[in-house]
């Protein structure tokens, strides 16, 4: 039993075990939901309903998620927190308006892109390694500092810099761009 998590009892629908589980981890779930809502700039008023959605997902398909949880692979708190964040992100995506008024769109968004030959997208497999993609995502999309990226990935900041450089060299070569 890891971290007060009675997996086999929960998977068999044991009511007292479920009650204990909810009482023990509802705060973790609620905290993850509220943090995700705040990050998205949303009101946290829906957190209670989303919390119920998380526990509903855990019960779904005869406790499928709980039955397939492996305490050797991840802590209960991390796993539950990610389930809660995933449920919240799904809810936020569903609520996003699919269309917007034409007048609201910036002119650049309506511009027709130059004809690039209408060729099917062909990226050579492995053009960038997963690690290089992640480093560029963190650098360009999240504007993270190389030192913070290094801390997240448990690598040396110099490795971040060299991977960044190698990735850009590959992209320039692929797209026919030359370095400035």
């Amino acid at each position: 039993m890891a971290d007060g998590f009675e997996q086999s009892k929960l998977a068999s629908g044991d009511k007292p075990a479920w009650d204990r589980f909810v009482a023990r981890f509802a705060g973790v779930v609620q905290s993850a939901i509220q943090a995700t809502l705040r990050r998205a700039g949303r009101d946290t008023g829906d957190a209670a309903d989303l919390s119920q959605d998380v526990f509903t997902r855990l019960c779904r398909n005869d406790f499928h998620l709980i039955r397939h949880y492996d305490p050797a692979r991840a802590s209960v708190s991390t796993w539950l927190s990610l389930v809660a964040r995933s449920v919240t992100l799904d809810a936020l995506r569903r609520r996003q308006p699919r269309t917007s008024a034409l007048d609201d769109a910036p002119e650049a968004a309506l511009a027709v892109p130059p004809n690039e030959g209408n060729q099917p997208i062909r990226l050579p497999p492995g053009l960038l390694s997963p690690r290089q993609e992640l480093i560029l995502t963190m650098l360009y999309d999240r504007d993270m500092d190389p030192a913070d990226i290094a801390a997240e990935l448990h690598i040396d900041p110099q490795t971040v810099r060299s991977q960044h450089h190698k990735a850009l060299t590959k992209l320039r070569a692929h797209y026919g761009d030359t370095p400035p």
Partner: protein
Amino acid sequence: MTAPSDRDRALWQRYRRDQPALPPPDMLDLAAYADRRLTEAQSDQIERSLARDPALLEAVLATRQPEPAAPISLAIIRRAQGLVPAPVGPRRLASWASIAAALVLVCVSGFQAGYSVGGRANDLNQPIELASWTGGDADGLD
């Protein structure tokens, strides 16, 4: 490292646009990655997914910096606890059995009581043989 140039950003955006979509990773794999329990080879697929889904990356990074558990109302807990119904356990079965037995007993007793009262009433409806009252010939009264 100098700040990324606009040209580098444009290259990256172009590469990002050309990337094919990936199916979302398994939740437990993602949790194992967040807990740093995957090997480098196992991490590759997760990192590829994270690079292509900013919201997922955000979730993993946030999970690594856990916030204290939020205070939660009893109503939310009770509502979630209600998702799993209380089972019909042996104790509850025993109480239902005793109620059922009591009902049967009441029915049987009621039936017997009703039968005995009804039987007596039927007896009263029988014609009375006057002779038996008079102890002989009814004509003897004259």
